[in-house]
């Protein structure tokens, strides 16, 4: 990452900027974010998405799971340096040779915020509840689908028996909750458990922060847990403030109202780069942006459904479509340079699993002439209007569903529309809400459709959705995002699942799977968008990225960033009392109101007096 400080500056320039910063924070900010007069160090984060519920068994939205990540510990976390599983509640773990029995050894110094010790019973109860209670399986049910039984051997040993091998055993993203708090809740709420919002503050948890306050639509406040087993967090408080408009959030960062803003656009990130005391962090993406082509949807029993364009079952056409697209151009113009052009499925951030076609493998590189030639040879004739017709006589007019809520997708869609026109394919660009897009996908009523996944350090899930088992059992019940089924791929998937110990061997299988995906041209990855965030260096002096090199702050798999963040020095402290801006603004309002009221009263009195 870039250094948070300017390289070398003359003393005077530095002190000038420091003075300017002082002025900015001291006199203009409406709310001092870094600290108030009581000496509490607060880290304020701007956020735009609403939380759904703090019930960790139910919470669906990314923002909520991220916050809960700081409130409840998990068994295993991710090492920010190596990107590999690292101890959290479990000090160590071990799998049997067949991969069906996993033993986790817990720490013995973990206490919940109400003073009770966290033991194996809490872990067993949490996992068992998710396995057995449908209501409680909403958030994490996918992690326990292969669990047969969870038992506590003693206070610090948990044994999980599996029905079949599961790749995510060291990436169980499940918040471990205190049994003594949740068992009564579950009993009391019964069928209404899904509606329980877990807002009895402060919420009892074992994480580095304690959920202390939720002012719906305004802010969420977390207090540091000074007794956390990993050590106390650097800040005393973590506050999330709502901004519906991302632009408003950026302005708030500029004037010091907040310490951190995430999910920036390229223009915002660029504009913040010149701002003093603001560090822009452009991290390697965890997401990939892709589009899938409908190769002819089928259920697992081979029943065809949907209304995808018939010509798309032809691999030549699919490959020609991919060759017509220039991923570098998509990065340049669709993402304004803030992305990495893609080849394989897994982002380069995960070095071991990342694969990109090189040399002879790169058969589908941008080459519209070759694509045109391929189509000519395959009998796709160009009509008078420049649009091709398939050998079966179907005009190549393809629908393309694009997420309207993702600007990079909207822009990429526009580029694709123009580029596919170059090889004689007419695109009907349908930029729609995600719900409509999902409907088209599940009903297989699409030709080209956008997709994208956030890839976890363990990439099992994003591969599992493309196995033949990922096909729907009946129309409309699909798991993944493409009607893809390939026997060789399935065999490799099974093979990599069993290689839970030999990483190199597993990576090899994973690379080979990506090669198949690339060649089949059903799932076509375009780019890996960067994650752009910015924070104030006069409020946060040190923060741990994950991964340490090129990593991000918000949305980490662990809680490294906010746990490690240290408040900046004393010079960021703002003066006590109400800032000037508040006084001026407040004064204006009061004046206006008083003047208005007085005016109206006088008027009324005058009129009534005169009427007599």
């Amino acid at each position, binding site marked *: 990452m870039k250094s948070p400080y300017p390289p070398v500056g003359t003393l005077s320039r530095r002190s000038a900027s420091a003075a300017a910063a002082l002025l900015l924070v001291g006199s203009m900010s409406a709310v001092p974010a870094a600290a108030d007069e009581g000496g509490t160090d607060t880290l304020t984060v701007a956020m735009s998405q609403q939380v759904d519920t703090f019930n960790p068994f139910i919470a669906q939205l990314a923002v909520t799971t991220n916050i809960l990540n700081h409130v409840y510990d998990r068994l295993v976390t991710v090492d920010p340096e190596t990107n590999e599983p690292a101890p959290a509640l479990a000090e160590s773990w071990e799998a049997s040779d067949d991969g069906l029995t996993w033993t986790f050894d817990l720490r013995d110094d973990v206490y919940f915020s109400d003073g009770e010790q966290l033991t194996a019973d809490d872990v067993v109860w949490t996992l068992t509840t998710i396995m057995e209670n449908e*209501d409680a399986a909403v958030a994490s049910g996918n992690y326990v689908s292969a669990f047969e039984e969870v038992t506590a051997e003693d206070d610090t040993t948990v044994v999980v028996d599996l029905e079949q091998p599961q790749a995510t055993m060291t990436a169980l993203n499940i918040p471990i909750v205190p049994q003594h708090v949740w068992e009564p809740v579950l009993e009391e709420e019964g069928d209404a458990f*899904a509606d329980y919002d877990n807002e009895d503050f402060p919420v009892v948890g074992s994480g580095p922060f304690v959920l202390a306050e939720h002012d719906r639509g305004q802010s969420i406040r977390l207090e540091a847990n000074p007794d956390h087993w990993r050590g106390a967090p650097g800040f005393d408080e973590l506050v999330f403030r709502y901004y519906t408009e991302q632009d408003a959030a950026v302005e708030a960062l500029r004037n010091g109202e907040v310490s951190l803003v995430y999910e920036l656009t390229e223009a915002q990130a660029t504009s913040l780069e010149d701002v003093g005391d603001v560090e822009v962090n452009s991290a390697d993406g965890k997401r990939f942006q892709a589009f899938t082509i409908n190769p002819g949807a089928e259920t697992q029993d081979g029943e065809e459904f949907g209304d995808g364009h018939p010509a798309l079952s032809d691999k030549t056409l699919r490959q020609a479509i991919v060759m017509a697209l220039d991923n570098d151009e998509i990065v340049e113009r669709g993402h304004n340079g803030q992305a990495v052009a893609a080849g394989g499925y897994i982002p380069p951030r995960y070095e071991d699993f990342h694969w990109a076609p090189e040399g002879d493998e790169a058969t589908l590189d941008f080459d519209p002439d070759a694509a045109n030639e391929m189509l000519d040879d395959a009998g796709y004739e160009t009509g008078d209007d420049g649009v091709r017709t398939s050998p079966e006589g179907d005009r190549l007019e393809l629908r393309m569903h694009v997420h309207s809520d993702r600007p990079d997708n909207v822009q990429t869609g526009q580029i694709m529309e123009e580029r596919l026109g170059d090889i004689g394919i007419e695109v009907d660009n349908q930029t729609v809400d995600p719900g409509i897009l999902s409907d088209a996908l599940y009903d297989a009523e699409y030709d080209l459709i956008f997709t994208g996944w956030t890839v976890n350090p363990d990439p099992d899930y994003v591969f599992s959705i493309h196995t033949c088992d990922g096909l729907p059992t009946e129309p409309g019940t699909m798991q993944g995002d493409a009607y893809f089924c390939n026997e060789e791929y399935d065999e490799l998937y099974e093979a990599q699942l069993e290689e839970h110990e030999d990483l190199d061997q597993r990576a090899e299988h994973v690379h080979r799977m990506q090669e198949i995906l690339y060649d089949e041209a059903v799932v076509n990855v375009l780019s890996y968008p960067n994650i752009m965030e910015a924070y104030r260096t006069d409020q946060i002096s040190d923060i741990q990225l994950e991964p340490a090199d090129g990593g991000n702050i918000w949305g980490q798999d662990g809680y490294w960033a906010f746990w490690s963040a240290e408040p900046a020095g004393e010079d960021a402290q703002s003066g006590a009392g109400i800032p000037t801006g508040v006084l001026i603004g407040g004064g204006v309002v009061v004046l206006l109101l008083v003047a208005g009221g007085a005016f109206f009263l006088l008027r009324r009195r005058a009129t009534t007096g005169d009427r007599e």
Partner: protein
Amino acid sequence: MTATPTATEEPAGSPREDAPAGGGGRVRRVVLYVLGRLTTAVVSLGAVIVAGFFLFRILPGDPVRAMTEGREVSLEQQEELRRQFGLDQPLWAQFLDYASGLLRLDLGVSFQYREPVADLILERLGPTLLLAGTGTLLAALLGLFLGARAGWRPGGRGDRVNTAVALFFWSVPTFWLGLLLIVLLASGRGFFPGLFPTSGMTAPDATGFEAVVSTAHHMVLPVVTMVAVIYAQYLMIMRSSLIDEKGADYLTTARAKGLRDALVRRRHAVPNALLPTVTLVFLNLGQVVSGVILVETVFSWPGLGYLFYSGLHVPDLGLVQGLFVLFAASVILMNLLADLVYPLLDPRVRP
């Protein structure tokens, strides 16, 4: 979206035409009139509830899929969510459920917040009333004041400037004005850097008097935006109704008595011209609702409009339809009030 500020528009549901014709005593007429108005309001509300339910049910897109899109969620998890939201029931059963809930003032549950919609609305009602109330009041005061000036000397320089400025602001997209104000007055750039906060309602740690001041401070930009866009309507109405009033005989009489011009205007013309304007303040509530949605969204004001916006794309059916009913109901109520209050104010239209 605001209604056209036109002088020729008559107030909706002007009581003149609907007053029962003749017959019976005065009390009976009044009772009939009030009953008629009440029935209309209730029927309208019923139609709004039915329309709201079915309109939002035909919104394309499955809320559960939209909410879980791009996340590692199994089919069972999706089914469970669907069951929890009641989306697995047939449409008519959902409607019966919804309608019977309404009788108990239960507006259903929001999908994304997982809270009763009624609770969410109650929570957000205050901020919206504060913002919309202040905005409307200031806009009305400003509009009426400037309108009285403009209408007294139509065609004069003051009138021309006033009208031109008002119409310009009326022509500006509300959200755009709000964003510009943020850049100019709230950002670190602009002319008065960081004078006002960019969003929210109160500083999170403010208490007591400080919280009041902080709220007022946060209100400035949203209120200014609202006022700028809607005051033209009041100005135009006041202006034209004063022009109408100017020719009236009693003003000639007043002048003949030798009263000064300003006095004639202030004490005679304006109070009479105010009458039709007062009803319009009630009736413009529909537009205030639209304005408030945009202003709250731009300034992240934690009110109903912001809530509506947040539910739009999910789509959070329960929340959006609940707000739809509430917005329409508030306009119906205001119409009813206007219909009932107007005859009290203006003896000419008493039933």
